[in-house]
């Protein structure tokens, strides 16, 4: 035994206490850092030295600085936080939509009620110029409400699209940071018996947690401490010190919106619906497909049903100058063309146009049209398969007509297998409503009076081989249009109004459709065509009659006006309460999730968090250990001195 060993043993204690003091101060200074896991020094007694018959201890050494950490609790907290971000985003967006739809200031409801109450007032005083002007001004304020509501929804949608792009850049930036940290973690673990640096592991975990707050994430840890992160059900974002970015690109099926895509080499893959979920991106995609698309479609459906019904009724009446009524609003029955997928075969010549066949049967949903090589498959946005009625009138008309749920598609040309179209029949129609300029400038043209009698005349188109021998109006209340196209395809006679093909009128006649009766003379040949015009007769001296204004006002109580099941007000109420339900459930989910996060965080912090009182006690303890070890060294020194004084 030597005094030198006593000194060395004391010194090892001094070093150990210094390491402990240093770790306690690290804990104290990082107490407020999010994601910091407290550290503790693991000490071990040094190997004893043999003294022949016995062993003597050689002091203490620092084995490692351990991160106090529980992987399971940490993962639970990370998942809960990701869900909390998801709910927070959902709550904020659904709350905006809910506020826009249901607050009295922006709701479309007062506008709708205003218009119908002015129709009612006009019915009582059909010759009053003031009553007519009030219909026009209330129609305009209803239009304003629809338009500003749609503008609000559009602006929320732009926020969603921007949010998807921003979240993707954030994921990519976090991914490359994580790859760098992974590299550092690996380096810190190189060497026999070395463990990765605790602070680097904290950085690694904080980055993983941030990524999983943005998108659904799966994490695996390698033995060297590096993390492999897979997002969106199968795309490897980070693997060791390599990261591959994801992208927000235009959806090939609908270039107006962004989707997530992965590019590996020259191949770009789009994860299927439902694979991207969770986190902020999951919430953004969900709000877009389940709330914004729904609200756009429903609000548009309300607009189209309302303008179409009012237009039809106004056309049925006679105006103050006793002329036949015209459209009160600009016609909204042309639905344009569905959006063709960018992946469609460029050699396809298919051309599709859509129009409203029956506004009260519209669903407000979106449809996807897929061609499988022989037939079109139609699926609505709820995933339901839709079976259309297919009509091919022929007789010079090249189109095939597909009718379903109030919509009629006219298809010409040839499609290739795999061609896909997206039809959003009513989306955005709420911002398209406009008053017919003729009515706007002359409210006398509002058809407040009922037509007492009407007649129908025919004119041949080209030189048909048959002729129309008699026409009459058999039921005025069923007449829906001012002009009809009446044509023969070789087997049957067809009638077409506003581009809509009515069911074929078979047999030899007289043919009756929509309250009109037509008798054909001669032998018809394929391609024979006539134009039928319905004109108002016998309205003289009746402009004091407000029956048609009354019929216009009574449209508000039509319980089949929207989707065949609801009045206009109820249709709006359904939309607002559906949005309200989503907002309420997001809000409840968010509150519950925040409570769960707090609870899990308390648990995680109970293990890994810093308690300052504990550290204060540790400081005292380690200070004493340091002082004690100093005393050992001092004692050894004095012993040396005593020995030296012997001489």
């Amino acid at each position, binding site marked *: 035994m030597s005094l030198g060993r006593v000194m060395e043993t004391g010194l090892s204690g001094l070093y150990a206490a210094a390491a402990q003091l240093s770790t306690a101060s690290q804990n104290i200074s990082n107490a407020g850092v999010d994601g910091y896991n407290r550290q503790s020094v693991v000490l071990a007694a040094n190997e004893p030295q043999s003294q022949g018959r016995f062993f003597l201890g050689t002091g203490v050494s620092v084995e490692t600085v351990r991160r106090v950490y529980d992987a399971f609790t940490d993962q639970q907290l990370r998942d809960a936080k990701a869900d909390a971000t998801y709910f927070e985003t959902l709550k904020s967006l659904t709350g905006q939509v809910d506020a826009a739809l249901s607050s009295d200031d922006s709701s479309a409801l007062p506008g709708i009620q205003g218009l119908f109450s002015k129709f009612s007032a006009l019915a009582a005083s059909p010759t009053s110029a003031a009553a007519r002007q009030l219909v026009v001004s209330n129609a305009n304020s209803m239009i304003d409400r629809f338009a500003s509501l749609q503008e609000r929804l559009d602006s929320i949608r732009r926020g969603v699209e921007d949010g998807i792009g921003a979240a993707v850049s954030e994921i990519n930036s976090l991914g490359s940071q994580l790859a760098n940290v992974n590299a550092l973690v690996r380096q810190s673990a190189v060497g026999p018996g070395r463990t990765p640096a605790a602070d680097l592991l904290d950085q690694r975990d904080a980055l993983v947690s941030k990524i999983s707050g943005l998108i659904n994430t799966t994490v695996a840890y390698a033995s060297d401490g590096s993390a492999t992160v897979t997002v969106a059900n199968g795309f490897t974002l980070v693997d060791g010190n390599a990261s591959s970015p994801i992208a927000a690109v235009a959806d090939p099926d609908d270039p107006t919106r962004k989707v997530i895509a992965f590019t590996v080499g020259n191949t770009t893959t789009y994860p299927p619906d439902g694979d991207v979920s969770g986190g902020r991106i999951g919430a953004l995609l969900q709000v877009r497909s389940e709330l914004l698309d729904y609200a756009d479609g429903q609000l548009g459906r309300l607009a189209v049903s309302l303008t179409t019904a009012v237009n039809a009724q106004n056309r049925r009446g006679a105006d103050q100058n006793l002329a036949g009524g015209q459209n009160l609003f600009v016609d909204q029955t042309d639905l344009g063309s569905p959006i063709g997928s960018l992946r469609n075969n460029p050699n396809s010549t298919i051309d599709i146009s859509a129009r409203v066949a029956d506004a009260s049967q519209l669903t407000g949903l979106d449809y996807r049209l897929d061609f499988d090589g022989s037939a079109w498959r139609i699926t609505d946005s709820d995933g339901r398969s839709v079976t259309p009625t297919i009509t091919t009138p022929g007789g010079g008309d090249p189109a095939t007509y597909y009718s379903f749920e109030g919509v009629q598609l006219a298809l010409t040309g040839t499609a290739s297998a795999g061609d896909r179209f997206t039809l959003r029949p009513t989306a955005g129609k709420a911002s398209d409503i406009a008053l017919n300029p003729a009515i706007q400038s002359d409210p006398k043209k509002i058809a407040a009076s009922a037509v007492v009698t009407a007649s129908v005349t025919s004119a041949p188109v080209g030189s048909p081989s048959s002729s129309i021998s008699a026409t009459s109006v058999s039921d005025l209340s069923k007449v829906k249009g001012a002009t009809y196209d009446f044509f023969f395809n070789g087997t049957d006679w067809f009638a077409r109004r506003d581009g809509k093909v009515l069911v074929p009128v078979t047999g030899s006649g007289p043919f009756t459709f929509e309250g009109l009766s037509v008798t054909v003379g001669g032998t018809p040949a394929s391609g024979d065509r006539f134009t039928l015009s319905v004109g108002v007769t016998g309205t003289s001296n009746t402009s004091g009659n407000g029956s048609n204004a009354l019929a216009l006002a009574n449209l*508000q109580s039509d319980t089949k006006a929207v989707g065949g099941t609801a009045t206009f007000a109820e249709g709006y109420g359904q939309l607002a309460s559906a949005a309200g339900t989503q907002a309420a459930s997001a809000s409840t989910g968010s509150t519950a999730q925040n409570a769960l996060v707090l609870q899990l965080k308390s648990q995680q912090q109970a293990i890994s968090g810093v308690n300052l009182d504990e550290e204060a006690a540790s400081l005292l303890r380690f200070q004493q250990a340091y002082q004690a070890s100093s005393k050992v060294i001092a004692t050894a020194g004095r012993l040396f001195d005593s020995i030296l004084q012997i001489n």
Partner: protein
Amino acid sequence: MRVATSTIYDTANYNIQLTYSRVVRAQSELASGSRLQTAADNPGDFAQLTRVGQLLSENTQYRDASEVARNRLELEEGTLASMGNLTQRARELAVQLGNGALSTSARLSIATEADGLLKSLVSLANSQNPDGGRMFAGISPTDAPVKSFDVSGSTYWYYDGNDSPRAVQVSSTREMPTSSAGSAVFFDTATPLPGPVTDPNGNPVNDSVFATLQDLVTAAKVPAPTSVGTQVESVLGRLTKFQEQMVTERARAGAYLNEIESIQSTLEVSKLSFTVLKGELKDADLADAISRFTQQQTALEAAQKSFVRVQGLSLFNYL
């Protein structure tokens, strides 16, 4: 149990935020008086509120329309009352004329007065409503319904209005006529006047209260009072018929006015019940909101005070 220092802050922050949001919610209910501020507050109630709102809006429309109908009918009733008085006076004049022993000047003054009565009757029959519509023109709007034309020195009166009455929807099921067809009140469509005369519309000219008064004027102007007896008798008979028609019309207007009164009181009752229902769905329960506000406010203060005390507990204070 080990508690991390950060947990003290996190918990306090969470609880204070949560309680604060409840205080804000209660305060906003109190300030706005509404507990259904957006559909998310109660989607089911909101859908119902939409329906009640629609019913209230229709109720207001019917109340407005019934008010229009009431004004028109009251005016018509008053006009018919005046016309009744004028016709009664014409009757008295006819009886005077029938007495026979009248001087020429007395007969001329009867003629002058009867002519005045005729003009007043025509004017009243062409009365307008405040909104410009004609009271006795059916659904024909702005043109005078009673017009005259002259053929070989004689004046003829004809009806140029419409036979259907102007109707106003005063409840969801009741469409009420608010104007009369003059043809049924002042004319006798079963009795065409003799002679090959047709009106400018090509229809035969019917007997009317105006033609009757015209006949009275003509009879009074006859210098030799020999055949006046039969003429006066005819005039009196026809006046009775038209007076009855006018009284019937006036009674009908009165009956409609009674009906409107009862419809209006029904509308008031349903308005009240819709308003109450709307209030139940939408209005804040003030007592509940105040008690929640006070309770949450106390909880918030307690959370704040306890946090300050807890975060003051540190071992470092004693080192």
